[in-house]
């Protein structure tokens, strides 16, 4: 019997190191393995014995692409342990810096990492030869997101201004005036991005996914809300460990998450959108409809449209926050450590990022657990590939391989943080 292997030794345009192996026997896909060989770094081990106020800066180093997600989840978890609830302008500034990270990360993925797949280029630099205006505008959009993070955080990567309880220093209102003008441009460009990506050709593909995201009664989720799914999950963040487990499989340095009651699930922009469409701003909803999307989208290849819609929302929301901002009296609330366990879950650009910390009476971390988004999507990516390869067996091998890579990039996997993720092998026996 004829068998084949699709093998990608080093997946490109993803953050981190991974590989994919697909085995095909005759007409059947027999095995799909997403290998994560990103070396383990042991954050949960060396956070033990550190002081609570070091956690946001240390956790940020898990991922250079979405450090804000790690800082925000760490802060919220530790504040939960201390019984602190942040409100008012500090809460708004946290949403604002998160808007910056979504815009920066989504623009990077949409323009530099994913669009080249749809247009048949190996990278954005080659794409820039024929599409210079698009690439330039993508870079400027990314820069606008980074400007928010830089203004509030001090720098784009591993910002230094976030702390448990708030910030070290908060800006005065006029600091935002130049940024607000650029964000108006960015919002228009995000709308143009939605129109542009909606013209791409999308493979006909969907599955009956369980989408998991935060849901908040009043807003599109960043830092707060309950964990909900389209299959009945509705829990508080502190109940996470009762519903989700991590498995350790031999082929991966990343732990794979699953729901205890069912199995694999899907986090990220598509999940957030499907569970929170009603909370998007009218402009973002309108942009989605004009791109032909309903309130639910199950085709992961169309996540590039959803990511663009989320950029519209993030620009809109950032402008709203800036307009209403008044500098708080103090940049942070008082933080008094106490014994306890705290839970935090926030919406990283790639999906929910869960943290749990147990802290002793001196404010020292006794143990902690960190679940990044990519490890939660890992099982779903493998299942997608199994179905995708099965239905596209007749494609020439190089084309099939490229589309498999593209199917993985749908999830904007961030492998460095999932280690505890990616090479593509398609093997036919």
């Amino acid at each position, binding site marked *: 019997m004829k068998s084949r292997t699709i093998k990608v030794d080093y997946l*490109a*345009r*993803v*953050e*981190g*190191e991974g590989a994919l192996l697909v085995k095909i026997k005759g007409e059947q896909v027999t095995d799909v393995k997403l290998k994560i060989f*990103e*070396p*383990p*770094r*042991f*954050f*949960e*081990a*060396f956070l*033990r014995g*550190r*002081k609570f106020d*070091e956690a946001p800066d*240390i956790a940020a*180093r898990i*991922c*250079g*692409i979405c*450090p804000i997600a790690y800082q925000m989840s760490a802060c919220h978890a530790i504040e939960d342990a201390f019984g602190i609830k942040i409100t008012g302008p500090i809460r708004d500034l946290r949403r604002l810096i998160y808007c910056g990270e979504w815009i920066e990360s989504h623009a*990077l993925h949409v323009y*530099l990492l994913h669009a080249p797949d749809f247009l048949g280029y*190996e*990278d954005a*630099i*080659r794409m*820039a030869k024929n599409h210079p205006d698009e*690439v*330039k505008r993508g*870079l*400027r959009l*990314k*820069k606008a997101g*980074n400007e928010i993070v830089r203004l509030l955080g*001090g*720098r*784009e*990567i*591993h910002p*230094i*201004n976030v702390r448990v309880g708030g910030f*070290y*220093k908060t800006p005065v209102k006029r600091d935002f005036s130049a940024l607000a003008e650029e964000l108006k441009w960015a919002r228009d460009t995000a709308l143009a991005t939605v129109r542009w990506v909606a013209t791409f050709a999308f493979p006909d593909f969907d599955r009956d996914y369980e989408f998991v995201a935060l849901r908040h009664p009043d807003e599109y989720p960043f830092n707060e809300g309950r964990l909900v799914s389209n299959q009945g999950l509705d829990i508080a963040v502190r109940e996470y460990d009762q519903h989700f487990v991590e*498995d*350790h*499989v*031999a082929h991966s*340095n990343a*732990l794979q998450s699953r729901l205890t009651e069912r199995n694999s699930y899907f986090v990220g922009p598509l999940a957030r959108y499907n569970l929170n469409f009603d909370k998007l701003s009218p402009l973002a909803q309108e942009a989605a409809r004009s791109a032909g999307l309903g309130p639910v989208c199950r085709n992961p290849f169309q996540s590039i449209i959803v990511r663009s819609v989320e950029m519209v929302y993030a620009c809109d929301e950032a402008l709203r926050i800036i307009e209403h901002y008044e500098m708080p009296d103090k*940049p942070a609330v008082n933080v008094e450590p106490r014994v306890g366990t705290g839970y935090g879950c926030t919406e990283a650009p790639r999906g929910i990022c869960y943290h749990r910390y147990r802290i002793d009476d001196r404010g020292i971390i006794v143990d902690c657990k960190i679940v990044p988004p990519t490890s939660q999507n890992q099982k779903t990516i493998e299942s997608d590939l199994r179905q995708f390869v099965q239905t596209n067996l007749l494609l020439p091998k190089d084309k099939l391989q*490229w589309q498999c*890579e593209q199917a993985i990039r749908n999830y904007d996997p*961030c492998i*460095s943080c999932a280690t*505890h993720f990616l090479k593509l092998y398609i093997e036919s026996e």
Partner: protein
Amino acid sequence: MALRKPKLAVWKFSSCDGCQLSLLDCEDELLAVADAVEIANFPEASRAVVKGPYDLSLVEGSITTPHDAERIHGIRRTSKFLVTIGACATAGGIQALRNFKDVKEFISIVYARPDYIETLKKSTPITDHVFVDFELRGCPINKYQLVEVLSAFLNGRKPNTPPHSVCVECKQRGTVCVMVAHGTPCLGPVTQVGCGALCPAYARGCYGCFGPKETPNTASLSAWWSGLGASERDLMRAFRGFNAYAEPFRRESEAHEK
């Protein structure tokens, strides 16, 4: 005949990807850089791979697995210049915290099946394994320093990255000393510049992400910290951060252990 463009390669070892992202974060310079060089190997940005040898290799991350300890030699052999970027590649990074503990215990804390994990006892900088032409500091690196390094190597000159302390930059930007004026413990006096003296400008003490400056007097700074109420454990943790395994910081943290 047109001149051949120099070939640039970017390599990743154990890291967070932030330093190589700095190249993509050069939004205003990226297309110009791509015009000046042939991006021959940069998996985070491109699926295209051009064979070596390479004129300039940027190496991110530290060596933590037996496979990576082999791989770096192959990269050195195909690279005319090899420049390490960031605290992981130049000092072992935050993951070098394992170097002070038993890595087996670390594995068992994080992974259900320790037998699936292959890792070295220590996280080490690239220079412990191969000759490095230049080390760019920072956690993360400063993107303008990265452009300076690219420009220097492509033009055959030495990069201009000052080795003095963060204090000098605080004075240059007119930041009031957080340690003198507010009693906030700060690693600025022993830490190399490059960040733009950010933390003091945001009213917090420097936490040393660019690593030790040349000839740092860490013992003296520790005494000042003690005067401000820092405990031995506080001092150990302060020096045991993103550049924990850089020699002067390692020695100082060990002096305060126990």
